[in-house]
Protein backbone atom coordinates (compact mmCIF):
# COMPACT_ATOMS: atom_id res chain seq x y z
CA UNK A 1 0.00 0.00 0.00
CA UNK A 2 2.85 2.35 0.76
CA UNK A 3 5.02 1.42 -2.19
CA UNK A 4 5.52 4.25 -4.65
CA UNK A 5 3.71 2.28 -7.38
CA UNK A 6 0.63 2.08 -5.23
CA UNK A 7 0.83 5.81 -4.61
CA UNK A 8 1.13 6.86 -8.22
CA UNK A 9 -2.08 5.01 -8.96
CA UNK A 10 -4.01 7.77 -7.26
CA UNK A 11 -2.86 10.39 -9.73
CA UNK A 12 -5.70 9.55 -12.08
CA UNK A 13 -8.14 10.85 -9.54
CA UNK A 14 -6.42 14.23 -9.51
CA UNK A 15 -6.61 14.62 -13.25
CA UNK A 16 -10.09 16.20 -13.64
CA UNK A 17 -9.56 18.50 -10.67
CA UNK A 18 -6.15 19.61 -11.88
CA UNK A 19 -7.33 20.26 -15.42
CA UNK A 20 -10.29 22.27 -14.16
CA UNK A 21 -8.36 24.35 -11.68
CA UNK A 22 -5.71 25.06 -14.31
CA UNK A 23 -8.24 26.18 -16.91
CA UNK A 24 -10.52 28.14 -14.59
CA UNK A 25 -8.12 29.55 -12.00
CA UNK A 26 -4.42 29.30 -12.82
CA UNK A 27 -4.52 30.37 -16.48
CA UNK A 28 -7.05 33.21 -16.00
CA UNK A 29 -5.13 34.50 -13.00
CA UNK A 30 -1.91 34.56 -15.04
CA UNK A 31 -3.72 36.28 -17.92
CA UNK A 32 -5.15 38.86 -15.56
CA UNK A 33 -1.70 39.64 -14.18
CA UNK A 34 -0.44 39.93 -17.76
CA UNK A 35 -3.30 42.33 -18.65
CA UNK A 36 -2.18 44.59 -15.82
CA UNK A 37 0.96 45.36 -17.85
CA UNK A 38 -0.97 46.14 -21.01
CA UNK A 39 -3.25 48.65 -22.62
CA UNK A 40 -6.33 46.62 -23.46
CA UNK A 41 -9.83 47.76 -24.38
CA UNK A 42 -11.25 44.30 -25.00
CA UNK A 43 -11.32 44.40 -28.79
CA UNK A 44 -7.82 44.77 -30.20
CA UNK A 45 -5.17 42.49 -28.66
CA UNK A 46 -3.50 43.79 -25.47
CA UNK A 47 -0.52 46.08 -26.00
CA UNK A 48 2.43 45.86 -23.59
CA UNK A 49 2.95 49.14 -21.73
CA UNK A 50 5.11 47.96 -18.83
CA UNK A 51 4.42 49.52 -15.47
CA UNK A 52 2.22 52.37 -16.68
CA UNK A 53 -0.99 51.00 -15.15
CA UNK A 54 0.76 50.35 -11.87
CA UNK A 55 2.20 53.86 -11.72
CA UNK A 56 -1.24 55.24 -12.42
CA UNK A 57 -2.72 53.01 -9.71
CA UNK A 58 -0.44 54.30 -6.98
CA UNK A 59 -1.30 57.89 -7.90
CA UNK A 60 -5.04 57.19 -8.23
CA UNK A 61 -6.99 58.84 -5.41
CA UNK A 62 -10.07 56.77 -6.24
CA UNK A 63 -8.09 53.56 -5.76
CA UNK A 64 -6.94 54.65 -2.30
CA UNK A 65 -10.47 55.73 -1.45
CA UNK A 66 -11.70 52.29 -2.43
CA UNK A 67 -9.26 50.68 -0.02
CA UNK A 68 -10.21 53.12 2.71
CA UNK A 69 -13.79 51.99 2.17
CA UNK A 70 -12.56 48.38 2.44
CA UNK A 71 -11.45 49.21 5.95
CA UNK A 72 -15.03 50.26 6.68
CA UNK A 73 -16.12 46.90 5.28
CA UNK A 74 -13.67 45.15 7.62
CA UNK A 75 -15.14 47.05 10.56
CA UNK A 76 -18.62 45.97 9.45
CA UNK A 77 -17.82 42.36 8.57
CA UNK A 78 -15.05 41.43 10.99
CA UNK A 79 -14.69 43.66 14.01
CA UNK A 80 -18.32 44.38 14.88
CA UNK A 81 -19.63 40.85 14.14
CA UNK A 82 -16.77 39.17 16.00
CA UNK A 83 -17.27 41.30 19.11
CA UNK A 84 -21.07 41.01 18.96
CA UNK A 85 -20.70 37.31 18.18
CA UNK A 86 -18.55 36.74 21.26
CA UNK A 87 -21.03 38.47 23.52
CA UNK A 88 -24.13 36.87 21.97
CA UNK A 89 -22.60 33.40 21.78
CA UNK A 90 -21.46 33.40 25.39
CA UNK A 91 -24.79 34.85 26.48
CA UNK A 92 -26.71 32.16 24.61
CA UNK A 93 -24.42 29.34 25.68
CA UNK A 94 -23.63 30.30 29.25
CA UNK A 95 -26.85 31.82 30.33
CA UNK A 96 -29.76 31.08 28.05
CA UNK A 97 -28.64 27.52 27.38
CA UNK A 98 -28.00 26.71 31.04
CA UNK A 99 -30.81 28.57 32.74
CA UNK A 100 -33.56 28.43 30.13
CA UNK A 101 -32.75 25.23 28.23
CA UNK A 102 -30.92 24.31 25.06
CA UNK A 103 -34.01 24.63 22.87
CA UNK A 104 -34.39 28.34 23.56
CA UNK A 105 -30.69 28.86 22.91
CA UNK A 106 -30.64 27.02 19.60
CA UNK A 107 -33.82 28.75 18.45
CA UNK A 108 -32.22 32.13 19.10
CA UNK A 109 -29.01 30.99 17.43
CA UNK A 110 -30.96 30.01 14.31
CA UNK A 111 -32.67 33.41 14.31
CA UNK A 112 -29.34 35.26 14.40
CA UNK A 113 -28.12 33.04 11.57
CA UNK A 114 -31.01 33.68 9.13
CA UNK A 115 -29.51 36.69 7.27
CA UNK A 116 -26.42 34.57 6.48
CA UNK A 117 -28.51 32.33 4.29
CA UNK A 118 -30.15 35.05 2.18
CA UNK A 119 -28.50 36.01 -1.13
CA UNK A 120 -26.41 39.06 -0.24
CA UNK A 121 -27.97 41.06 -3.08
CA UNK A 122 -31.42 40.39 -1.68
CA UNK A 123 -30.21 41.28 1.82
CA UNK A 124 -28.90 44.55 0.43
CA UNK A 125 -32.22 45.23 -1.29
CA UNK A 126 -34.12 44.53 1.94
CA UNK A 127 -32.09 47.13 3.85
CA UNK A 128 -32.13 49.44 0.81
CA UNK A 129 -35.92 49.23 0.76
CA UNK A 130 -36.12 50.22 4.42
CA UNK A 131 -33.69 53.09 3.77
CA UNK A 132 -35.59 54.46 0.74
CA UNK A 133 -35.24 58.23 0.50
CA UNK A 134 -38.74 59.71 0.83
CA UNK A 135 -41.31 57.13 1.81
CA UNK A 136 -38.87 54.58 3.23
CA UNK A 137 -39.78 52.67 6.36
CA UNK A 138 -36.89 54.09 8.39
CA UNK A 139 -37.74 57.68 7.51
CA UNK A 140 -41.43 57.29 8.23
CA UNK A 141 -40.70 55.60 11.55
CA UNK A 142 -38.39 58.48 12.44
CA UNK A 143 -41.14 60.94 11.53
CA UNK A 144 -43.72 59.07 13.61
CA UNK A 145 -41.57 59.20 16.73
CA UNK A 146 -41.01 62.90 16.18
CA UNK A 147 -37.45 62.74 14.91
CA UNK A 148 -38.21 64.51 11.65
CA UNK A 149 -34.77 66.09 11.67
CA UNK A 150 -33.09 62.68 11.58
CA UNK A 151 -34.66 61.73 8.24
CA UNK A 152 -32.03 61.24 5.56
CA UNK A 153 -31.58 60.22 2.01
CA UNK A 154 -29.65 57.29 3.45
CA UNK A 155 -28.15 55.90 0.26
CA UNK A 156 -28.04 59.14 -1.71
CA UNK A 157 -26.09 61.17 0.80
CA UNK A 158 -22.29 60.71 0.73
CA UNK A 159 -22.15 60.90 4.53
CA UNK A 160 -24.72 58.17 5.09
CA UNK A 161 -24.31 55.81 2.12
CA UNK A 162 -21.28 53.97 3.50
CA UNK A 163 -22.73 53.53 7.01
CA UNK A 164 -25.95 52.19 5.43
CA UNK A 165 -23.98 49.57 3.48
CA UNK A 166 -22.09 48.75 6.67
CA UNK A 167 -25.42 48.04 8.36
CA UNK A 168 -26.28 45.56 5.60
CA UNK A 169 -22.99 43.75 6.18
CA UNK A 170 -23.23 43.68 9.97
CA UNK A 171 -26.76 42.33 9.69
CA UNK A 172 -25.69 39.63 7.23
CA UNK A 173 -22.53 38.67 9.07
CA UNK A 174 -23.34 38.54 12.78
CA UNK A 175 -24.87 35.04 12.72
CA UNK A 176 -21.70 33.39 11.47
CA UNK A 177 -19.51 34.05 14.54
CA UNK A 178 -22.48 33.30 16.82
CA UNK A 179 -22.82 29.78 15.38
CA UNK A 180 -19.07 29.11 15.28
CA UNK A 181 -18.36 30.44 18.76
CA UNK A 182 -21.29 28.58 20.32
CA UNK A 183 -19.95 25.30 18.96
CA UNK A 184 -16.51 26.19 20.29
CA UNK A 185 -17.88 26.99 23.73
CA UNK A 186 -19.29 23.48 23.94
CA UNK A 187 -15.64 22.39 24.16
CA UNK A 188 -15.03 24.27 27.39
CA UNK A 189 -15.00 21.95 30.37
CA UNK A 190 -17.82 23.06 32.70
CA UNK A 191 -15.72 22.04 35.71
CA UNK A 192 -13.31 24.80 34.74
CA UNK A 193 -16.04 27.40 35.07
CA UNK A 194 -17.26 25.94 38.32
CA UNK A 195 -13.74 25.96 39.76
CA UNK A 196 -13.28 29.57 38.67
CA UNK A 197 -16.64 30.48 40.19
CA UNK A 198 -15.67 28.91 43.48
CA UNK A 199 -12.45 30.92 43.38
CA UNK A 200 -14.61 34.02 43.23
CA UNK A 201 -14.03 34.91 39.58
CA UNK A 202 -16.88 36.98 38.19
CA UNK A 203 -18.39 36.55 34.72
CA UNK A 204 -16.01 38.98 33.07
CA UNK A 205 -12.94 37.30 34.61
CA UNK A 206 -14.13 33.88 33.47
CA UNK A 207 -14.93 35.23 30.03
CA UNK A 208 -11.43 36.61 29.59
CA UNK A 209 -9.44 33.84 31.21
CA UNK A 210 -11.33 30.78 30.00
CA UNK A 211 -13.70 31.58 27.15
CA UNK A 212 -11.33 33.65 25.04
CA UNK A 213 -8.42 31.29 25.64
CA UNK A 214 -10.35 28.19 24.64
CA UNK A 215 -12.03 29.53 21.54
CA UNK A 216 -9.06 31.49 20.22
CA UNK A 217 -8.55 29.16 17.21
CA UNK A 218 -12.13 29.89 16.12
CA UNK A 219 -11.65 33.61 16.61
CA UNK A 220 -8.69 33.41 14.25
CA UNK A 221 -10.61 31.44 11.63
CA UNK A 222 -13.62 33.75 11.81
CA UNK A 223 -11.43 36.85 11.62
CA UNK A 224 -9.49 35.51 8.64
CA UNK A 225 -12.44 34.28 6.57
CA UNK A 226 -14.46 37.42 7.30
CA UNK A 227 -11.54 39.71 6.45
CA UNK A 228 -11.16 38.00 3.08
CA UNK A 229 -14.91 38.32 2.52
CA UNK A 230 -14.82 41.99 3.51
CA UNK A 231 -12.06 42.74 1.02
CA UNK A 232 -14.14 41.05 -1.70
CA UNK A 233 -17.46 42.86 -1.04
CA UNK A 234 -19.18 43.57 -4.34
CA UNK A 235 -22.90 42.81 -4.53
CA UNK A 236 -24.29 45.26 -1.93
CA UNK A 237 -22.34 48.12 -3.50
CA UNK A 238 -23.49 47.10 -6.97
CA UNK A 239 -27.12 46.75 -5.94
CA UNK A 240 -27.44 49.82 -3.72
CA UNK A 241 -25.08 52.62 -4.75
CA UNK A 242 -22.86 51.60 -7.70
CA UNK A 243 -19.99 53.05 -5.70
CA UNK A 244 -21.64 56.44 -5.31
CA UNK A 245 -22.57 59.10 -4.51
CA UNK A 246 -19.24 60.23 -5.95
CA UNK A 247 -16.70 57.72 -4.73
CA UNK A 248 -18.13 57.49 -1.22
CA UNK A 249 -18.92 53.75 -1.41
CA UNK A 250 -16.45 52.53 -4.04
CA UNK A 251 -14.65 49.33 -3.10
CA UNK A 252 -11.77 47.71 -5.05
CA UNK A 253 -13.86 44.89 -6.50
CA UNK A 254 -16.56 47.26 -7.75
CA UNK A 255 -13.92 49.67 -9.08
CA UNK A 256 -12.25 46.93 -11.13
CA UNK A 257 -15.63 45.65 -12.35
CA UNK A 258 -16.61 49.11 -13.59
CA UNK A 259 -13.25 49.50 -15.34
CA UNK A 260 -13.78 46.12 -17.05
CA UNK A 261 -17.34 46.50 -18.23
CA UNK A 262 -18.39 50.14 -18.05
CA UNK A 263 -15.26 52.02 -19.10
CA UNK A 264 -13.72 48.96 -20.86
CA UNK A 265 -10.29 49.87 -19.51
CA UNK A 266 -9.46 46.19 -19.14
CA UNK A 267 -5.75 46.72 -18.45
CA UNK A 268 -6.46 49.10 -15.60
CA UNK A 269 -9.28 46.94 -14.21
CA UNK A 270 -6.88 44.00 -14.21
CA UNK A 271 -4.35 46.11 -12.31
CA UNK A 272 -6.89 46.92 -9.59
CA UNK A 273 -7.97 43.29 -9.24
CA UNK A 274 -4.37 42.08 -9.17
CA UNK A 275 -3.59 44.59 -6.43
CA UNK A 276 -6.63 43.34 -4.50
CA UNK A 277 -5.42 39.74 -4.89
CA UNK A 278 -1.99 40.68 -3.54
CA UNK A 279 -3.57 42.38 -0.53
CA UNK A 280 -5.79 39.37 0.21
CA UNK A 281 -2.92 36.90 -0.03
CA UNK A 282 -0.70 39.12 2.13
CA UNK A 283 -3.40 39.57 4.78
CA UNK A 284 -4.02 35.82 4.90
CA UNK A 285 -0.31 35.14 5.33
CA UNK A 286 -0.04 37.63 8.18
CA UNK A 287 -3.00 35.94 9.87
CA UNK A 288 -1.56 32.45 9.46
CA UNK A 289 1.83 33.50 10.82
CA UNK A 290 0.19 35.26 13.75
CA UNK A 291 -1.89 32.18 14.48
CA UNK A 292 1.17 29.93 14.42
CA UNK A 293 3.01 32.30 16.77
CA UNK A 294 0.06 32.31 19.15
CA UNK A 295 -0.05 28.51 19.12
CA UNK A 296 3.66 28.26 19.81
CA UNK A 297 3.43 30.76 22.65
CA UNK A 298 0.66 28.61 24.11
CA UNK A 299 2.81 25.48 23.88
CA UNK A 300 5.74 27.17 25.64
CA UNK A 301 3.47 28.07 28.51
Amino acid at each position, binding site marked *: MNSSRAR*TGYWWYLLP*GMLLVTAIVVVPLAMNIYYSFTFYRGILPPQWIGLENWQRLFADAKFWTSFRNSIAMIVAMVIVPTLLGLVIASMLFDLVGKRFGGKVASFLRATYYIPQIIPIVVAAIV*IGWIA*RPDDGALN*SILATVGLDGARQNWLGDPTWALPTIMVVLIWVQVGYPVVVFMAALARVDPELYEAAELDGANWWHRFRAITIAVIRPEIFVVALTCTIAALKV*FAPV*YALTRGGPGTSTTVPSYYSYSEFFQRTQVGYGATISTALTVVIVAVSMVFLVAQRRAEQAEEVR
Partner: protein
Amino acid sequence: MSGRRTVRNTGRRNARRPLDWVLLAIAVLGALVVVAPLLLIVLNSFKSPDDYNQGGPLQLPSHLYFDGLTRFWEASDFPTKLWNSIFISSMVAVLGVLVSLFNAYALGIGRARGRLPLLVVFLLANMLPQEALLYPLYTMSKAVGLYDSQWSVIIIFTVIQSAFGTYLLTSVYSGFPRELLEAAEIDGAGRWRSLWQVVVPVSWQTLSVLLIFFFIWTWNEFLIPTTFLVSNDKQTVPLAVAALQGEKLMDVTTTSASALLGLIPTLVFFLVFQRTLTRGVTAGAVK
Protein backbone atom coordinates in the same frame (compact mmCIF):
# COMPACT_ATOMS: atom_id res chain seq x y z
CA MET B 1 -20.55 11.51 38.11
CA SER B 2 -22.70 12.60 35.21
CA GLY B 3 -25.75 11.93 37.33
CA ARG B 4 -24.48 14.28 39.97
CA ARG B 5 -23.93 16.99 37.42
CA THR B 6 -27.42 16.66 35.97
CA VAL B 7 -28.96 17.01 39.39
CA ARG B 8 -26.92 20.07 40.11
CA ASN B 9 -27.72 21.62 36.76
CA THR B 10 -31.45 21.17 37.09
CA GLY B 11 -31.19 22.63 40.57
CA ARG B 12 -29.51 25.64 39.05
CA ARG B 13 -31.98 25.92 36.24
CA ASN B 14 -34.78 26.55 38.65
CA ALA B 15 -32.85 29.27 40.42
CA ARG B 16 -33.28 31.93 37.78
CA ARG B 17 -32.23 35.28 39.12
CA PRO B 18 -33.94 38.48 37.93
CA LEU B 19 -30.72 39.36 36.12
CA ASP B 20 -31.06 36.19 34.03
CA TRP B 21 -34.44 37.38 32.79
CA VAL B 22 -32.99 40.76 31.88
CA LEU B 23 -30.18 39.14 29.89
CA LEU B 24 -32.63 36.75 28.20
CA ALA B 25 -34.72 39.77 27.24
CA ILE B 26 -31.63 41.37 25.70
CA ALA B 27 -30.86 38.21 23.71
CA VAL B 28 -34.46 38.02 22.47
CA LEU B 29 -34.47 41.72 21.62
CA GLY B 30 -31.29 41.26 19.59
CA ALA B 31 -32.87 38.38 17.70
CA LEU B 32 -35.93 40.55 17.04
CA VAL B 33 -33.72 43.30 15.62
CA VAL B 34 -32.19 40.70 13.29
CA VAL B 35 -35.55 39.48 11.95
CA ALA B 36 -37.23 42.91 11.98
CA PRO B 37 -36.17 43.81 8.41
CA LEU B 38 -37.61 40.53 7.16
CA LEU B 39 -40.85 41.07 9.07
CA LEU B 40 -41.13 44.56 7.58
CA ILE B 41 -40.76 43.08 4.10
CA VAL B 42 -43.42 40.44 4.77
CA LEU B 43 -45.78 43.02 6.25
CA ASN B 44 -45.50 45.45 3.35
CA SER B 45 -45.48 43.05 0.43
CA PHE B 46 -49.24 42.58 0.77
CA LYS B 47 -50.16 46.27 0.78
CA SER B 48 -51.12 48.54 -2.05
CA PRO B 49 -48.88 51.62 -2.47
CA ASP B 50 -51.76 53.84 -1.25
CA ASP B 51 -52.25 51.68 1.78
CA TYR B 52 -48.53 51.98 2.48
CA ASN B 53 -48.50 55.74 2.09
CA GLN B 54 -51.48 56.22 4.35
CA GLY B 55 -50.79 53.71 7.09
CA GLY B 56 -47.02 53.74 7.04
CA PRO B 57 -44.72 50.72 7.16
CA LEU B 58 -45.77 49.43 10.56
CA GLN B 59 -49.55 49.08 10.08
CA LEU B 60 -51.15 45.81 9.12
CA PRO B 61 -52.46 45.91 5.54
CA SER B 62 -56.01 47.31 5.48
CA HIS B 63 -56.80 44.65 2.93
CA LEU B 64 -54.63 41.93 1.40
CA TYR B 65 -53.17 43.07 -1.89
CA PHE B 66 -51.40 40.64 -4.20
CA ASP B 67 -50.79 42.89 -7.21
CA GLY B 68 -47.23 43.70 -6.18
CA LEU B 69 -46.31 40.03 -5.91
CA THR B 70 -48.01 39.03 -9.16
CA ARG B 71 -46.55 42.02 -10.98
CA PHE B 72 -43.01 41.10 -10.01
CA TRP B 73 -43.71 37.40 -10.54
CA GLU B 74 -44.80 38.07 -14.12
CA ALA B 75 -42.31 40.83 -15.01
CA SER B 76 -39.39 38.69 -13.89
CA ASP B 77 -40.85 35.42 -15.18
CA PHE B 78 -40.16 34.08 -11.72
CA PRO B 79 -40.78 30.35 -12.36
CA THR B 80 -38.06 30.36 -15.03
CA LYS B 81 -35.64 32.12 -12.68
CA LEU B 82 -36.45 29.66 -9.94
CA TRP B 83 -35.81 26.72 -12.23
CA ASN B 84 -32.53 28.26 -13.48
CA SER B 85 -31.30 28.73 -9.93
CA ILE B 86 -32.27 25.18 -8.99
CA PHE B 87 -30.63 23.74 -12.10
CA ILE B 88 -27.35 25.66 -11.80
CA SER B 89 -27.04 25.17 -8.04
CA SER B 90 -27.80 21.43 -8.17
CA MET B 91 -25.36 20.80 -10.99
CA VAL B 92 -22.63 22.70 -9.15
CA ALA B 93 -23.40 20.89 -5.90
CA VAL B 94 -23.15 17.43 -7.47
CA LEU B 95 -20.19 18.12 -9.75
CA GLY B 96 -18.37 20.14 -7.09
CA VAL B 97 -18.68 17.34 -4.54
CA LEU B 98 -17.57 14.79 -7.13
CA VAL B 99 -14.44 16.77 -8.02
CA SER B 100 -13.69 17.42 -4.33
CA LEU B 101 -14.11 13.71 -3.64
CA PHE B 102 -11.67 12.65 -6.37
CA ASN B 103 -9.12 15.28 -5.39
CA ALA B 104 -9.33 14.46 -1.71
CA TYR B 105 -9.18 10.72 -2.39
CA ALA B 106 -5.86 11.22 -4.14
CA LEU B 107 -4.48 13.80 -1.75
CA GLY B 108 -5.84 12.69 1.63
CA ILE B 109 -5.95 8.91 1.27
CA GLY B 110 -3.54 8.34 -1.60
CA ARG B 111 -1.14 10.96 -0.24
CA ALA B 112 -0.23 11.72 -3.86
CA ARG B 113 3.10 13.41 -4.37
CA GLY B 114 3.13 17.21 -4.40
CA ARG B 115 0.33 17.19 -1.89
CA LEU B 116 1.25 20.38 -0.06
CA PRO B 117 1.78 22.69 -3.07
CA LEU B 118 -1.45 21.38 -4.57
CA LEU B 119 -3.37 22.11 -1.40
CA VAL B 120 -1.95 25.63 -1.44
CA VAL B 121 -3.22 26.05 -5.03
CA PHE B 122 -6.71 24.92 -3.99
CA LEU B 123 -6.69 27.17 -0.94
CA LEU B 124 -5.58 30.10 -3.09
CA ALA B 125 -8.26 29.35 -5.67
CA ASN B 126 -10.82 29.74 -2.94
CA MET B 127 -9.35 32.95 -1.55
CA LEU B 128 -8.96 34.86 -4.80
CA PRO B 129 -11.32 37.70 -5.57
CA GLN B 130 -13.46 36.64 -8.52
CA GLU B 131 -12.54 39.89 -10.29
CA ALA B 132 -9.01 38.55 -10.70
CA LEU B 133 -10.39 35.80 -12.96
CA LEU B 134 -13.38 37.57 -14.40
CA TYR B 135 -12.17 39.19 -17.58
CA PRO B 136 -10.00 36.28 -18.80
CA LEU B 137 -12.90 33.91 -18.12
CA TYR B 138 -15.17 36.27 -20.01
CA THR B 139 -12.94 36.26 -23.11
CA MET B 140 -12.37 32.51 -22.82
CA SER B 141 -16.10 31.80 -22.60
CA LYS B 142 -16.66 33.89 -25.73
CA ALA B 143 -13.89 32.01 -27.52
CA VAL B 144 -15.40 28.59 -26.78
CA GLY B 145 -19.03 29.65 -27.29
CA LEU B 146 -20.05 29.35 -23.63
CA TYR B 147 -20.79 33.04 -23.09
CA ASP B 148 -24.42 33.52 -22.05
CA SER B 149 -24.63 29.81 -21.29
CA GLN B 150 -25.48 28.41 -17.88
CA TRP B 151 -22.69 25.90 -18.38
CA SER B 152 -20.04 28.59 -18.06
CA VAL B 153 -21.42 29.46 -14.62
CA ILE B 154 -21.74 25.77 -13.68
CA ILE B 155 -18.14 24.99 -14.66
CA ILE B 156 -16.67 28.03 -12.94
CA PHE B 157 -18.49 27.39 -9.66
CA THR B 158 -17.75 23.68 -9.77
CA VAL B 159 -14.08 24.65 -9.67
CA ILE B 160 -14.39 27.41 -7.07
CA GLN B 161 -16.54 25.34 -4.69
CA SER B 162 -14.49 22.19 -5.16
CA ALA B 163 -11.35 24.15 -4.28
CA PHE B 164 -12.85 24.63 -0.83
CA GLY B 165 -14.24 21.10 -0.77
CA THR B 166 -10.86 19.60 -1.64
CA TYR B 167 -9.21 21.49 1.15
CA LEU B 168 -11.80 20.43 3.71
CA LEU B 169 -12.17 16.81 2.59
CA THR B 170 -8.43 16.23 2.35
CA SER B 171 -8.00 17.07 5.99
CA VAL B 172 -10.93 14.78 6.85
CA TYR B 173 -9.49 11.93 4.74
CA SER B 174 -5.99 12.30 6.20
CA GLY B 175 -7.36 10.66 9.30
CA PHE B 176 -9.38 8.02 7.44
CA PRO B 177 -9.18 4.62 9.19
CA ARG B 178 -6.60 2.63 7.22
CA GLU B 179 -7.96 -0.72 8.44
CA LEU B 180 -11.14 -0.19 6.44
CA LEU B 181 -9.21 0.36 3.23
CA GLU B 182 -6.90 -2.57 3.88
CA ALA B 183 -9.85 -4.84 4.59
CA ALA B 184 -11.45 -3.83 1.28
CA GLU B 185 -8.17 -4.47 -0.49
CA ILE B 186 -7.95 -7.95 0.96
CA ASP B 187 -11.45 -8.56 -0.33
CA GLY B 188 -10.07 -7.76 -3.76
CA ALA B 189 -11.54 -4.29 -4.17
CA GLY B 190 -9.61 -1.94 -6.44
CA ARG B 191 -9.25 1.77 -5.92
CA TRP B 192 -12.48 2.59 -7.70
CA ARG B 193 -14.53 0.12 -5.70
CA SER B 194 -12.88 1.14 -2.41
CA LEU B 195 -13.81 4.72 -3.14
CA TRP B 196 -17.50 4.01 -3.67
CA GLN B 197 -17.97 1.13 -1.23
CA VAL B 198 -15.80 2.27 1.65
CA VAL B 199 -14.80 5.92 1.47
CA VAL B 200 -18.08 7.45 0.30
CA PRO B 201 -20.37 5.60 2.75
CA VAL B 202 -18.05 6.27 5.70
CA SER B 203 -17.72 9.99 4.96
CA TRP B 204 -21.28 10.50 3.77
CA GLN B 205 -22.04 13.02 6.51
CA THR B 206 -19.27 15.37 5.42
CA LEU B 207 -20.18 14.91 1.77
CA SER B 208 -23.81 15.81 2.40
CA VAL B 209 -22.76 18.94 4.28
CA LEU B 210 -20.64 19.94 1.27
CA LEU B 211 -23.52 19.22 -1.09
CA ILE B 212 -25.86 21.51 0.82
CA PHE B 213 -23.32 24.30 1.17
CA PHE B 214 -22.28 24.22 -2.49
CA PHE B 215 -25.94 24.48 -3.41
CA ILE B 216 -26.70 27.49 -1.24
CA TRP B 217 -23.41 29.27 -1.97
CA THR B 218 -24.00 28.93 -5.69
CA TRP B 219 -27.62 30.04 -5.33
CA ASN B 220 -26.47 33.23 -3.59
CA GLU B 221 -23.70 34.13 -6.07
CA PHE B 222 -24.00 37.36 -7.96
CA LEU B 223 -20.91 38.70 -9.77
CA ILE B 224 -20.17 35.79 -12.10
CA PRO B 225 -23.81 35.02 -13.00
CA THR B 226 -24.50 38.68 -13.69
CA THR B 227 -21.48 38.84 -16.01
CA PHE B 228 -22.09 35.62 -17.89
CA LEU B 229 -25.87 35.30 -18.03
CA VAL B 230 -27.09 38.20 -20.15
CA SER B 231 -30.27 36.68 -21.58
CA ASN B 232 -33.28 37.16 -19.41
CA ASP B 233 -34.39 33.54 -19.66
CA LYS B 234 -31.04 32.24 -18.36
CA GLN B 235 -30.74 34.36 -15.23
CA THR B 236 -31.08 33.30 -11.59
CA VAL B 237 -33.34 34.52 -8.77
CA PRO B 238 -30.87 36.99 -7.18
CA LEU B 239 -30.20 38.53 -10.62
CA ALA B 240 -33.92 38.89 -11.28
CA VAL B 241 -34.47 40.69 -8.00
CA ALA B 242 -31.52 43.03 -8.57
CA ALA B 243 -32.30 43.66 -12.24
CA LEU B 244 -35.75 45.12 -11.77
CA GLN B 245 -34.81 47.56 -8.99
CA GLY B 246 -35.41 51.13 -10.08
CA GLU B 247 -37.68 50.10 -12.95
CA LYS B 248 -40.90 52.04 -13.46
CA LEU B 249 -43.21 49.24 -12.44
CA MET B 250 -41.44 48.91 -9.09
CA ASP B 251 -43.52 51.06 -6.77
CA VAL B 252 -42.80 50.91 -3.07
CA THR B 253 -44.74 47.74 -2.27
CA THR B 254 -43.81 45.92 -5.48
CA THR B 255 -40.16 46.45 -4.53
CA SER B 256 -40.89 44.95 -1.15
CA ALA B 257 -42.66 42.03 -2.87
CA SER B 258 -39.61 41.46 -5.11
CA ALA B 259 -37.39 41.20 -2.04
CA LEU B 260 -39.88 38.81 -0.46
CA LEU B 261 -39.81 36.51 -3.48
CA GLY B 262 -36.02 36.64 -3.42
CA LEU B 263 -36.03 35.62 0.25
CA ILE B 264 -38.55 32.81 0.24
CA PRO B 265 -36.57 30.07 -1.57
CA THR B 266 -33.53 30.39 0.69
CA LEU B 267 -35.68 30.67 3.81
CA VAL B 268 -37.45 27.43 2.87
CA PHE B 269 -34.06 25.86 2.25
CA PHE B 270 -32.89 27.11 5.64
CA LEU B 271 -35.88 25.65 7.46
CA VAL B 272 -35.39 22.27 5.80
CA PHE B 273 -31.62 22.02 6.29
CA GLN B 274 -31.14 24.09 9.42
CA ARG B 275 -29.40 21.34 11.39
CA THR B 276 -27.00 20.37 8.64
CA LEU B 277 -26.19 24.02 7.96
CA THR B 278 -25.26 24.87 11.53
CA ARG B 279 -23.30 21.63 11.87
CA GLY B 280 -21.49 22.44 8.64
CA VAL B 281 -20.56 25.96 9.66
CA THR B 282 -18.90 24.63 12.79
CA ALA B 283 -17.14 21.80 10.95
CA GLY B 284 -15.89 24.18 8.27
CA ALA B 285 -14.63 26.69 10.77
CA VAL B 286 -12.38 24.32 12.63
CA LYS B 287 -11.29 22.74 9.34
